């Protein structure tokens, strides 16, 4: 594309400049009207925006308070929701142990909390059955 006009804004300004002063009086009254219109439009827009914001704030304020008042239900520690999980009835993260909230378990020097559950043959037994013996309790996981 060939452009006969020289490039740059400054060149356009100098081209237009001589035409403007030809009608100075009419231009100034027209400009005054235009400025008044712009100021009017700006004022109306400002009133609408501020008014809209105020109306929205008043309208939404009770909702905001209601949302803030909803108590946060803490998830019970280590308790899993009951329901249909996988085909084997196990929680979906089966194979990976769930995460306990951080914090130490039973400490050294404390009495070991008793445990009662079934062994691999389905026979229930207790940790305290082994009282009188030293017990190495090994929490293990199939990865």
């Amino acid at each position, binding site marked *: 594309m060939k452009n006969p006009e020289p490039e740059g804004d400054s060149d356009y300004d100098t081209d237009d400049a001589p035409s403007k002063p030809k009608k100075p009086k009419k231009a100034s009254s027209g400009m005054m009207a235009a400025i008044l219109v712009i100021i009017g439009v700006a004022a109306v827009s400002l009133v609408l925006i501020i008014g809209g914001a105020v109306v929205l704030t008043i309208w939404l304020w009770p909702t905001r308070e209601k949302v803030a008042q909803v108590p946060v239900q803490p998830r019970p*520690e*280590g*308790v*899993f929701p009951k329901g249909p999980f996988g085909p*084997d009835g*196990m*929680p979906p993260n*089966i*194979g990976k*142990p*769930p*995460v*306990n*909230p*951080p*914090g*130490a*378990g*039973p*400490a*050294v*020097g*404390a*009495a*070991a*909390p008793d*445990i009662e*559950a*079934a*062994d*691999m*043959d*389905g026979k229930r*037994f207790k*940790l*305290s059955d*082994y*009282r*009188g*013996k*030293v*017990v*190495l*309790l*090994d*929490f*293990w*996981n*199939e990865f």
Partner: protein
Amino acid sequence: MEGKPFALIGVNTNGYDPEKMKAVMQKENLVWRSFADQDRRIFSAWRVQGTPTLYLIDHKGTIRHRWIGSPGAQAIDSAIEALVKEAETS
């Protein structure tokens, strides 16, 4: 440790039922008696953060050592030996 007042007890933390746990134990060649922590009640009560977690409990039922992650066979063996001696002399 045959004939000594010592027992190695496992707690499986996968949440398996006894049958599934037994299958895994046979596959992985684990021979010690283990609790099937099906509802993960033990896991929660003991606040287990990861496996292996090991507790060494003396003959009176007091926790004497806790290892999160294995400290190595030697550390475990010497700790057991000391507590077994304690149990035998009391």
